[in-house]
């Protein structure tokens, strides 16, 4: 066991950790998006709230939740370590460096976009997860979502964070496949396209909530805010 864990210490092994936790988090985002889409059911938030309660009540989901937090923490620690050791590998920087000629800005700044996403995550958990799951708030989750997005500042922070997340995923998705070795001349372009579509789905999907709820498009916000459960 220890011997097989050893393989995760090397430079390639650390990337494997990054890729595996990253793909796991990608999968989680899809599930999260599915749950959020229930907010658009125009049923006063009933389906969304019930889904939330179902997740909390399910022992398997609760276990997966631990894995999820573990995955996030590993992804962050490993990312920090990689960023740090990679900086050390080039102590003297170039006076002139035209990196834009050979790679994209987002592919080179995963640590930076990841850090901003982390800050967003803290805010996000503070608004929804902590009050409901730890402090046991009485209010309906759907109601909290709808009212939080009434603030223009808050809604725009969300949109910005989701666009950044999309860019992070656009590189991360195909990068994970490359790291896991599932990349060759045959699939390379298919994986890149799939990654971009996935990133777009996540970025646009999640951005839609602050936008729709803030501007009350199609009455999604008033539908929930005017329902007392």
């Amino acid at each position: 066991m220890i011997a097989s864990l050893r393989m995760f210490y090397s430079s390639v092994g650390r990337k494997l950790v990054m890729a595996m936790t990253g793909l796991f988090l990608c999968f989680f985002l899809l599930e999260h998006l599915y749950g959020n889409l229930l907010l658009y059911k125009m049923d006063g938030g009933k389906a969304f709230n019930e889904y939330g309660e179902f997740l909390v009540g399910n022992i398997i989901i609760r276990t997966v939740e631990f894995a999820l937090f573990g995955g996030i923490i590993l992804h962050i620690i490993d990312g920090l370590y990689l960023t740090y050791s990679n900086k050390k590998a080039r102590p003297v920087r170039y006076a002139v460096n035209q990196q834009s000629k050979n790679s994209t800005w987002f592919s080179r700044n995963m640590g930076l976009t990841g850090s901003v996403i982390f800050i967003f995550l803290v805010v996000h958990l503070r608004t929804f997860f902590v009050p409901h799951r730890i402090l046991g708030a009485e209010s309906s989750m759907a109601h909290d979502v709808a009212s939080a997005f009434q603030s223009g500042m808050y809604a725009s922070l969300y949109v910005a964070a989701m666009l950044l997340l999309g860019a992070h995923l656009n590189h991360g998705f195909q990068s994970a496949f490359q790291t896991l070795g599932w990349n060759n001349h045959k699939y390379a372009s298919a994986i890149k396209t799939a990654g971009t579509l996935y990133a777009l789905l996540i970025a646009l999907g999640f951005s839609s909530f602050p936008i729709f709820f803030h501007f009350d498009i199609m009455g999604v916000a008033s539908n929930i805010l005017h329902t007392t459960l």
Partner: protein
Amino acid sequence: MAESINLKLKIWRQRNTKDSGHFETYDMPGVSTHMSFLEMMDVLNDRLIRDGKDPVAFDHDCREGICGMCSMYINGRAHGPLKGTTTCQLHMRHFSDGETITIEPWRASAFPVIKDLVVNRSAFDKIIAAGGYISVNTGNAPDANSLPVEKVKADEAFDAAACIGCGACVATCKNASGMLFLSAKVSHLALLPQGEPERKERVMRMIDAHDEAGLGSCTNTGACEAECPKEISISHIARLNREYLRAGMSQE
């Protein structure tokens, strides 16, 4: 096109590994556009020697794009602005009159500067020594066709073997990672039957040697593939990762 151009060269000068180094600017009037980049450096050095000054130290050997010795970071790009080209194969017609060209050595903690533009690339030798070989008993060479190799694999192995070990991948990578080099060497042997017996230890040992040299970790930006003078694909890095997973899961 003008037959000759006037240039300014901003060159990194460093006396030895310990020296902190600095840039020095040289005027280069009337540079023939037919010259190669290294020939222009020769002209400069010739002048410096005549003036009793220290010539600029730079690595070079074959001057025909096959040895990988020439290593210069020209205007922020490894081996200069041209794709799929070594510095020695780069010609002055790709520069314009009045331009200032900045020339720096490869920068990586694994490649310490020896003098000016010359860096110590023995980290690569250590990686090769760790597994970039096959063990065969001496004796008569076996018949060339006694080991059948599929055409596709032979071609792919050949593409990997085109690596000249120049270090442009490390120089250009934001992480100073040697993965493209390492993967080319691992991939080349992993694809061939001759490489099969040592396949698993090879990848493990070579990755260890890579990490010990202080080379960074790959984050798949793809910069190496774009700057590699032999245009080696990062799909070899994917193969390396596959080999590593395979070896890591099955060993012990």
